[in-house]
């Protein structure tokens, strides 16, 4: 049985390689028969969590569908206030970051720590860009023009009396999505720090990379639906 909880004496006793978090020094919990089983259990748990995340956004999509059916004019007028170029740019940014994070998982599976770090850094830059565009070019100008949700609405040139409702759905949908972007970026920063400090990930130990990447892909997946619903359909 290859349970190795203690540092491997074969490895040169220098730097990170003696650290218990170095990927070759990791074992698995005693209630699993092997590392594979532990990995599959972790991933199963992650997929269960992701399905609850999808159901969370399903509520928002359902609210969108209801109010769209009831007040199509408000939805048409509301979506004209959004600039498809910022939405499109953010879509491209998220797709690129999804690709780099998938490449990061591949790098970890191949034991290429440098490539993992490189891919995570690019992903985090994309995350920062996404949030910056969302805030600086979309939220701030819109809110300062009074295009705010519900009773906070103070834009005097509305075409339809239901436009505050459109803005409520817009801010809830994109706001909760942006929150997920920030949480995902936080997870990836954690992964990045461990990769830099301890070389924590390699072919037999990359559960955390895999699950953080799955979370990041979910963020991308949600945006794939939010983008056309908000920016393109009118």
């Amino acid at each position, binding site marked *: *049985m290859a349970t190795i909880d203690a540092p491997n004496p074969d490895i040169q006793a220098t730097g990170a390689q003696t650290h218990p978090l170095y990927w070759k020094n990791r074992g698995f919990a005693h209630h699993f*028969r*092997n*590392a*594979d*089983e532990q*990995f*599959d259990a972790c*991933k*199963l748990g992650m*997929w269960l969590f992701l*399905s609850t995340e*999808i*159901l969370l956004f*399903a*509520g928002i999509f*359902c609210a969108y*569908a*209801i109010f769209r*059916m*009831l007040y*199509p*004019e408000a939805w*048409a007028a509301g979506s004209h206030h959004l600039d*498809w170029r910022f939405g*499109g740019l953010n*879509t491209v940014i998220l*797709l*690129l970051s*999804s*690709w780099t994070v*998938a*490449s990061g998982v*591949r790098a970890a*599976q191949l034991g290429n720590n440098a490539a993992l770090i490189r891919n995570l850094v690019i992903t985090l830059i994309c995350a920062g860009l996404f949030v910056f565009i969302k805030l600086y070019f979309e939220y701030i100008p819109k809110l300062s023009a*009074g295009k705010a949700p519900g*009773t*906070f*609405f*103070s*834009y*005097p*040139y*509305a*075409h*339809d*009396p*239901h*436009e*505050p*409702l459109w803005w409520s759905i817009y801010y809830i949908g994109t706001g909760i999505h942006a929150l997920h972007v920030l949480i995902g970026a936080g997870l990836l920063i954690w992964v990045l720090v461990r990769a830099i400090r301890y070389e924590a990930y390699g*072919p037999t130990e990359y559960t955390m990379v895999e699950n953080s990447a799955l979370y990041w*892909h979910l963020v*991308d*997946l949600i945006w*794939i*639906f939010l983008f*056309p619903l908000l920016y*393109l*359909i009118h």
Partner: protein
Amino acid sequence: MSHSIDDVHIPNPDFDPTDPHATGQGHHGHHIISAPTLMIVLLLLLFFTALTVGLSRGEVWVQDTFDIILPNWLNIIIAMSISVIKATLVGAYFMGLRFDKALNSIIMLVCLAAVVCFLFFTAIDLGNRDSVSAVRATVPTPGGTGEGLDKTADRFSTALSPRISTNRMPITEFRRTERLNELALKQAEDHGRIEPNDEDKAAGEAEFWRIYYQGYVDKGKHPHRHEHDEHNYFTKLPDHFAHHDDDALEPVSRPDVAGVADSSPNFSFRRTGKTPGLFSEGSEHASDHAAPASDH
């Protein structure tokens, strides 16, 4: 022939009788997706993004150029189909579901089935609203009135919630009036008056619409006449608006807000509320406004 215990044939010397299924062999069989596959999936995703944006812009172009309004459901079906293809690509390759244990895909599909149920039952509920008994009929104020906040403001005195009462006016109308009063007051101040007179109100209104149209000019967009611009300040504004005058064009026909009017193909849901007050301002009150229209 003598048989000793040493003669027992062991086919595999690595066989461990304490672990007959060799579960302790560590990692095996994790699929590593090749770099070219990941690159192709990324390029496909970018292609589909460009496609969905292109089709959406194309629809706008067709509307502007040929004055053809495509039905709204076409737009929705195309955009959502492309989204589903993109989501499948992300799920199958980036998230690795195609090479993963089937259980993970099953969880995802069950979850999506739940989402479909969620949308389906909501849709049939909305679709059957016509047959709801009139007991629940109330006259809703579109966009809300802020009344609820007024009531709760005393109990939860928080600076965050705006204490506004719109006198049962839609909040959009309320905000418009608010800004018009502000501008009229400013005009009055400039002329040394305390109360704005009719002249100030008219000047304030002109300024109100100038700000609106100027916003479009500043963004380099073609300004269209706002439907609430009753006095057509569009044509009274300075020269640089004059050549944009599209007042001669018929505005795009929209279904009546009251809901019982004709449905344009550009709007997806024909709202014929048999339940008074559910979709319209209320059939009792609708007659006040609808009567002159039916004369034509």
